[in-house]
Structures are given as C-alpha cells and as structure tokens.
C-alpha cells in the first residue's frame, strides 16, 4: 500500500536501512524494483541527509524508510537539519505492533513524540483505512507552503493488514491552507517604496531556492537595476549585470555585502528569516532602511526584525507581480558606491609558498568545475570558505546545513544530490572533523558507483571552534586539535575510491583538474594550512558593519596540529 502511494506521488528514489519493525515493507519493496530505486546507506543519519540533499538539489521530496527505535532515532539529526532549512522530506519509520505500543517493547520509541518539535507534521498511523489519506497528506504538507519534513510512524501490525487502496484525489485539510498570493496592496506599497528609494537592496534567502524563483529574481534585479546580496541559503543568483551582485552577508559575509545592508535605505527581503547569523545585533541591522519582507510563512514576518511592509505569499506569485510594474529608477550612484567598496575591501586571501590555503582549493574548484555543479559543503570553516570563494550561478547548486549547522552533512547530502542529478557534477567539500562524522557513506558511493567528487580540507583541527578559541578564548585550544587524523586517501582507496593526497600549493590546480575529469568517484585529501581563519568575521551579536578584517596567525598552531615549526 505504501508503494502504491509512492507511485502516485511519483517517488523515484528511496533512502534507508531495514530492520525488524519495517521488514514487511522492505519485503514488498522487492515487487516494486522496476518502478523505484532504493539506496541502502550505512547509517540512518546518512540516509536522511541523502534524502535531504536529493530534495534540495531537485526540489522533489526526499523519501526515507527506516525501522523503529534506534533506526528512527538515528534519523533525528537529519530531520532536524531538514526542518531548520525547510526541506521537504517524508520519513517513514516502522513502529512496534499496535498492541505492543506503550509496553516498552523491543525497539519501541515514541518517535512522533521525539520528532514533534523538528517536523512540520507527524502522525502515528492507527488503522489501514486511514493510510492512503495519511500518506497523501504527508506529501502534500511536506511540499507545499513552507516546505518541511513530515514523519509517518507505521506500526508493524498495519504493514501486513489488508485493506482497500483508494488514494484520495483531492485533499481537504481544515487547518492547512498556505497563503500563496501576496496581498496586492502590500505589493503596491513595496513598489512605491522602491520608486522613492535611493539605495535599495534585495536580500535573497533560502526561500528563493526552495521556491525555484531565482530566474524571476534575476529578471527583477536586471529590470530595475537593484543590487542584491544573499544569505548563506540564498546562493545561486546570477543577474546579467554582474555589478549588481554583492555576495553573501552575515557573520562571514563579504565586507561590501554587509556594507550594503548597513547603508541601504530600503531592504527587500525575499524568503529570509533574519537569523542571528545574518543580523548580528538586530538593533544595528540595517539601521537606515525600511524593510519589505516577503515570505510564505506568516510567522517569519516580524519574528526577528521589525518590518515596514509585510507580504505573505509565494515568491513566485509575488515576483511575477513585481515584474508587472514599470517605472524608471536610477540607482546608479548607489551601485557606484558599492562598487568602490567592493574594490577597496575585496574578499581575498594570501597564498603561501609552503602551505595550501583552503581558500585556494575552493576558488580553484570554482574555476575548474562546470557552472551547473552541485556543491555540498559541510559545517565550519570549510563551509564559510565555500560560501565566500565559490561563485554559485545556479539555484539549488549550494547545499549546506545552514540552520542547524550539522557536521557530517556534506558527504551523504552530496550522494543524495548525485542520485537526483546523475548528469551533473557533484562536489563534496568537508573539513576533516565533519567528514569523519559520516565517513561510512564512502561505502555507499562505492556500492552504487556514484561518481561523486570529494575534497577534504584537512586543517588537523575542529577549525571553526579553534578559530573562536583563538579569537575569544585567548588561544586555549580545548579539545579542537585533531593531530591524529588518518590518511583519508588511503581510507578512500581501501573502500574502492580513487584518491589523491596533496600538501603543496603547486599541486592544487593539477589535482582539481584530475578530479573534474575523473569518470569515477574520487577523493582529494588536501592538507591545508591549519593557521588559517575565516575572515571577515562579525563577532556573535556584533554590528555587521564592523567585522574583524584580519586575524593574525597563532604561531603555536602548526606545532600543536602538525608538529611543525612556524618559519
């Protein structure tokens, strides 16, 4: 019955691991082999992140199938990751038989209780009769309005129960009616503000990627000549006029991006949630600007910053409405001003003759890989360097755990992205710490011979935390030195994946060239300079207009991580 519903929902890929409380469902899977592909992972967290990477990169919901108890709890980090970044997942967990629920039976866990605060919706199925309706609702709720994960807990006794399968055509959920059409009066007010603005700025958030409206936004920017910045989740914009694009903002945003926010007189925020990593001190965020906030989730509007013009609606509708307006605007002075700041405060790094700079690797990858490559970054310094030095020109091409900041996300998410985009290059970039959190999924790459490309930026440290310790805790490196890392290239080779280990700056471009052209899965283990910090940096809760623009190297780090002397 489950798979009949999957068929109706055009599910093509399923991610998971079997177990006792879902064994009947897995048995049935054999009869659907020709209709959908199943991918076995080595850890349920891996399967869930993979479904998430599949969903983010394709826009289709990711489907996860796991057993009860530990199988279910292992998905929790993956579900929370998807929830924070509004990613549509349908997670099916096996549950002990209806009669055993509440008895602390073997592998019984109240997963609907556990997952309540990290799902958009969840449901414990109580009868076969309700199953078709419940499944239809699950897909509908996961993918519409503000997307998110939905968990369905399916007791074992119901997996074998017979029932008539009647899939509902239409749904009537009394408490669920997302507002999609933006209010015309508010849209008009927003346009009036734009007409009268001298220094407008669009902030594009994850909502632009989720709603598939980057092309509309590019049009909008070019039509009116409005500069744009994006949040970590909003990468992938490509206005024809390159001067309009000012990069990322927030804690590790570019100086000029944050400068634009602080100096704008009007902010049009599209699908953003004004997280603390973006605003810094909310009182000093965009102090001179009126704010127009467009979001499909009314609860986001006014949650973190005060808004002057709220527009609740789907970005597709709202951008189409914006595009219908015609007015002459001249923001060239403002664009000029921003251009000057961009030139005086560029995003840069200094190369070193002996050590590979992680930024160099990222920036080279950005040059060598084709423009439609999907990049999955992990969490920490590596993620920020990718955000800063990889230029994303396509929507849904940058995957990372923005809201939850889940280390171990990149590798399985990249696998999911490759499964969903077999014809695109998929590049995973991870730090040495996070890579080891789901390293077991290298096996999955080899099992399905998925030509995923992997770069491990190994700075022999839990780098981002080490950076905070250097800057805010007087260089006391508590539990952040990883001077005992394995040789990741050897591990990859042992699994059956081609690998290279590099440690000299001269090797970077050559290695990346091999990586791009490899037809098989391949890993590069890059030993990078452990001293490097992510700059600019706005200290937590600080003023985004006043970032740290440099952070000196701590001379002891080389000794502590690699046992090498600083020159």
């Amino acid at each position, binding site marked *: 019955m489950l798979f009949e519903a999957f068929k109706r929902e055009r599910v093509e890929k399923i991610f998971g691991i079997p177990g006792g409380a879902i064994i009947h469902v897995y048995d049935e899977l054999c009869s659907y082999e020709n209709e959908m592909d199943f991918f076995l992972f080595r850890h349920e967290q891996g399967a869930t992140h993979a479904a998430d990477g599949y969903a983010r990169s394709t826009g289709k919901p990711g489907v996860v199938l796991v057993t009860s108890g530990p199988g279910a709890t292992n998905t929790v980090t993956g579900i929370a990751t998807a929830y924070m970044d509004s990613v549509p997942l349908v997670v099916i967990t096996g549950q002990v038989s209806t009669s055993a629920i509440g008895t602390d039976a073997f592998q019984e866990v109240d997963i609907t209780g556990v997952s309540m605060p990290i799902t958009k919706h969840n449901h414990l199925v109580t009868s076969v009769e309700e199953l078709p309706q419940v499944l239809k609702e699950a897909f509908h709720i996961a993918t519409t309005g503000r997307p998110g994960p939905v968990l369905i807990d399916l007791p074992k006794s119901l997996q074998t129960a017979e029932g008539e399968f009647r899939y509902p055509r239409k749904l009537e959920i009394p408490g669920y009616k997302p507002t999609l059409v933006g209010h015309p009066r508010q849209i008009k007010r927003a346009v009036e503000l734009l007409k009268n603005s001298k220094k407008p700025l669009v902030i594009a958030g994850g909502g632009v990627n989720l709603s598939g409206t980057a092309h509309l936004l590019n049009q909008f920017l070019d039509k009116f000549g409005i500069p744009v910045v994006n949040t970590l989740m909003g990468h992938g914009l490509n206005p024809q006029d390159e001067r309009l694009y000012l990069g990322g903002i927030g804690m590790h945003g570019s100086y000029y991006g944050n400068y634009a926010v602080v100096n704008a007189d009007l902010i049009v925020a599209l699908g953003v949630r004004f997280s603390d990593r973006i605003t810094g001190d909310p009182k000093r965020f965009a102090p001179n600007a009126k704010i127009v906030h467009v979001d499909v*989730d009314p*609860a986001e509007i006014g949650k973190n910053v005060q808004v002057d013009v709220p527009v609740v609606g789907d970005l597709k509708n709202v951008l189409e409405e914006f595009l219908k307006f015609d007015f002459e605007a001249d923001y060239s002075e403002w664009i000029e001003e921003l251009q000057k700041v961009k030139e005086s405060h560029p995003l840069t790094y200094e190369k070193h003759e002996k050590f590979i700079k992680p930024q160099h690797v990222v920036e080279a990858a950005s040059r060598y890989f084709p423009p439609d490559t999907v990049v999955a970054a992990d969490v920490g310094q590596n993620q920020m360097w990718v955000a800063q030095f990889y230029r994303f020109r396509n929507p849904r091409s940058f995957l990372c755990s923005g809201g939850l900041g889940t280390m171990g996300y990149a590798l399985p998410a990249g696998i999911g992205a490759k499964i969903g985009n077999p014809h695109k290059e998929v590049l995973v970039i991870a730090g040495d710490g996070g890579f080891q959190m789901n390293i077991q999924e290298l096996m999955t790459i080899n099992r399905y011979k998925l030509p995923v490309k992997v770069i491990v930026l190994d700075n022999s440290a839990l780098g981002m935390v080490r950076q905070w310790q250097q800057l805010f805790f007087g260089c006391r490196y508590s539990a952040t030195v990883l001077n005992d890392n394995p040789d990741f290239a050897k591990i990859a080779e042992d699994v059956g994946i081609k690998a290279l280990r590099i440690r000299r700056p001269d090797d970077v471009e050559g290695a990346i060239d091999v990586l791009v052209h490899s037809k098989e899965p391949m890993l590069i283990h890059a030993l990078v300079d452990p001293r490097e910090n992510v700059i600019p940096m706005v200290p937590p809760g600080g003023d985004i207009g006043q970032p740290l623009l440099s952070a000196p190297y701590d001379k002891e780090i080389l000794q502590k991580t690699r046992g090498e002397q600083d020159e």
Partner: protein
Amino acid sequence: MSETVEHEHIVSVLVCNKPGVLRRVANLFARRGFNISSISVGEAKDPGLSRLTIVVRGNDRIIEQIEKQLYKVIEVVKVSPIAPSPEKRVEREMALIKVQIDEKTKLEILQLVEIFRGKIIDVAKDGMIVEITGARSKVEAFIKLVESSGKIVEIARTGIVAMNRWNLSKKEA
C-alpha cells in the same frame, strides 16, 4: 507594538479532535518559551472539533508570534484572540474549594458563598466543598476571603473559558 509591556492575553483555539493535538500545542508553548497561565479544553460546536482556551502572558510581539505559531500546527483550524477589554468579552472560570470548618468559620464561609453566589456541593461535620463560578478576578477574590476564614485543603480550577461578546464576534466573522 509594545515590546516591553507584558500583559495577559486570552486566545481561543479551534482544533481538529485528533490524538496528540494537545501535546502538540503544549509542546509548541514549551519550545518557544511562551508561558501558559491556564488552558482549558472541551468539545466545540461542530463534531470533530475541540476548543482550547489558553491564557498566556507576554508582550505584543510574543502574543503575535503565539497566534502565528499556533496556525502552523496542522490541526489548528482557527485562532481567535479574545478582546483584552472586559466590556468586549465574557469570561468564566469555575473552582471547587475544599475547606475545613468549625462552628465559627462555618457561618463566615456560608456568608461568603451567598455574597459571591457560590454553591455548597458537599458538607461533612468538619469540612465542605464549595463551587464558585465567575470571572477569574471574582474566583480569586473569593478564594482569598475563604482563606482568611478557614483552612483550605484543596482547590481545583477549570481554567478560563472565554468568548468575545456578540457584537464583536459578528463583526469579526
């Protein structure tokens, strides 16, 4: 909108009568750090629907968030804020009060019950149970007075139920 002034606010929430709804709502309040002062639940007009009446404390911004977050619970069908002004709403709470009595306090309490139009619903030699219904301020005043005359052993309160008055709710609909 006032960011600083905290006040009490009543929201009436219509929900689908499904397993786990209460838990979802309770979870939401805990998760977002909203403070519930009282909550009452009962069947609503239409079959399959229940009505929760929730009293919360918070500033205007928090109250707005509460309403919006409640709407995100799939089973929540309608969230109706109850007017803050007592002229525009009716509100009732019921309390059962078990109180120890002796010859002297008995009379005092009987008097109070009469003034407050309460009811004696159980009497024994050295104690009784009193029922009192009214706006919360009345219930609280009554409890205070009873406390000063006799020893209260137990109190059970329903929490507030409330509705906007006829004119207001018609305009709203």
